[in-house]
């Protein structure tokens, strides 16, 4: 695993705009960054990222299977009781999951460590699946990188295949909130994958969804919504006014309700409890667990429901701490042993390992100047070249 500085394609911004990738630059700085790329060996990808990702997914299923029948765990995860039966039923009915991103700390040598699982509303999918793929093809064509490079990235193909196998009858509605170009871009991309799988699709903003007299969800044409993909966190759905109508709405939701157990940081202490010592896991405890005090070598405190690095506090073994502000954290927190991100040329690097329909199928890399990655962290492409 190496970070290699390379030339940018001179037309990447105009290409991004033509493809609807309109959030490539953020806060005045490039978010998509192709001034460098990361190089991996095939063995690193297959043995250290792909296989462990599949193993972690299997362990996660064991956690869900246990949690749905354990009210103490559901309460610990701060999931409202009114949704427990709904979550359990979605697991028992084997409601299908679409996609998720495991965030891993990996330096190319020691085992990748799971930092968290974004199993409900992961973004940076389009950049990983499509823009990164186009970059690889063009960078080889233009001699920026040597011919014969590969990439761990069959995300697009796997997404289309997943939609073909989903068994969705009727129109698939897809929703994001108003006011986020990035979320809408991600949803538009997912819509594209569904359309390529032959599904009929319709985009709607979360705010525009209605309900009819029978409690079914409706779109702006007053058509009942039978399947809804939502890029909107489950914990917010559960707090919203219409949240309680969902279990009776008859609509299938993607991601399904049981995914809320995995997108919760409480997953990390549950994994550690069930699979203590697994090479890809870090010691983790609920914050109120006395064993949390025994973590040596520093720790990271994470609210159960934070996203994009918000409200994360990192305490090093020398006691020095670093925190990112944010609006999360009232529901409780976990602590996880500190496993600092590797540093390449002064950049802190995190690996996003993508699973589609539970199959590891691709990777995206984020870099930050700070040891805690956040929503402004840059996205860099990668290559496989032995």
């Amino acid at each position, binding site marked *: 695993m190496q970070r290699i500085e390379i030339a940018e394609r001179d037309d990447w911004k105009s290409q991004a705009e033509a*493809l609807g990738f309109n959030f490539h630059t953020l806060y005045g700085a490039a978010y998509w960054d192709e001034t460098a790329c990361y190089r991996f060996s095939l063995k690193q990808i297959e043995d250290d990222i792909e296989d462990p990702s599949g193993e972690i997914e299997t362990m996660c299923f064991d956690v869900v299977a246990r949690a749905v029948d354990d009210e103490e765990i559901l309460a610990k995860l701060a999931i409202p009781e009114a949704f427990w039966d709904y979550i359990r039923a979605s697991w028992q009915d084997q409601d299908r999951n679409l996609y998720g991103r495991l965030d891993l700390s990996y330096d190319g040598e020691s085992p990748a460590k799971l930092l968290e699982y974004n199993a409900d509303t992961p*973004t940076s999918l389009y950049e990983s699946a499509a823009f990164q793929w186009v970059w690889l093809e063009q960078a080889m064509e233009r001699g920026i990188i040597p011919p014969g490079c590969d990439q761990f990235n069959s*995300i697009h193909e796997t997404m289309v295949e997943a939609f073909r196998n989903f068994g969705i009858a*009727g129109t698939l509605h897809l929703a994001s909130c108003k006011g*986020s170009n990035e979320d809408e871009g991600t949803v538009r991309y997912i819509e594209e994958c569904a359309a390529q799988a032959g599904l009929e699709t319709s985009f709607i903003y979360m705010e525009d969804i*209605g*309900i009819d007299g029978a409690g079914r969800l*409706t779109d702006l044409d007053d058509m009942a919504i*039978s399947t809804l993909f939502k890029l909107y966190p489950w914990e917010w759905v559960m707090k919203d006014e219409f949240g309680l109508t969902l279990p009776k709405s008859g609509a299938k939701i993607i991601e399904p309700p049981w995914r809320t157990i995995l997108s919760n940081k409480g997953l990390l202490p549950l994994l550690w409890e069930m699979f203590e010592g697994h090479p890809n896991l870090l010691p983790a405890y609920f914050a109120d667990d006395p064993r949390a005090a025994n973590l040596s070598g520093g720790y990271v405190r994470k609210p159960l429901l934070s996203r994009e690095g918000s409200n994360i506090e990192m305490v090093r073994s020398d006691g020095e701490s670093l925190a990112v502000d944010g*609006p999360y954290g009232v529901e409780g927190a976990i602590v996880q042993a500190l496993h600092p991100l590797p540093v390449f040329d002064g950049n802190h690097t995190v690996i996003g390992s993508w699973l589609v329909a539970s199959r590891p199928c691709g990777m995206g890399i984020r870099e930050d100047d700070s040891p805690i990655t956040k929503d402004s962290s840059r996205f860099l492409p990668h290559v496989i070249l032995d």
Partner: protein
Amino acid sequence: MKRSRSLTLALMSATAMTLAACDNPEEVAIFENAQQCATQEGFDIKACEANMKLAQEEHIRVAPKYTSVADCEADFGAGQCEDAPQKTTSGSSVFMPLMMGYMMGNMMAGRTSNAATQPLYRSKDDPSNFRTGDNQKVSGKTGISKVPGQIAQAPSTKTSTIRRGGFGSSARAMGGGFRSFGG
């Protein structure tokens, strides 16, 4: 190779946001009733009856609804309508056409069919063809037929929205400064 073999994005590009997806035809079986279904090679009476029952339940949900018999008969012909179990919000009767047949997946296709079992109708202006609850033309004959994949899917339901805006307040409560509500 660890990457997708090809990748095209039709919808995402600014110029083609509304391009329709290509449609895969689906093999379906069409019958007037379960007895007729049972005479089809490879179809057994139990499955025929189960699917007909399913179609009858769907009939109540997806049949076009009218608030007067005259309006219903104008579209489906004299004597071709019945009372629907639903009532309007003011309590008056609702009418719908009679179910004239049903469509199910081809049990001989040797794989799971994507076709949704559903009721079929015959309209007054085109009585020789079966139509779905969505008013999509299916076929004029019974037995095995190929239909566009979209038609084989369950018809969508037109309803009345009583309220909107019940989702999204949690996002607004997070305040500004977020470029994404995902992560």
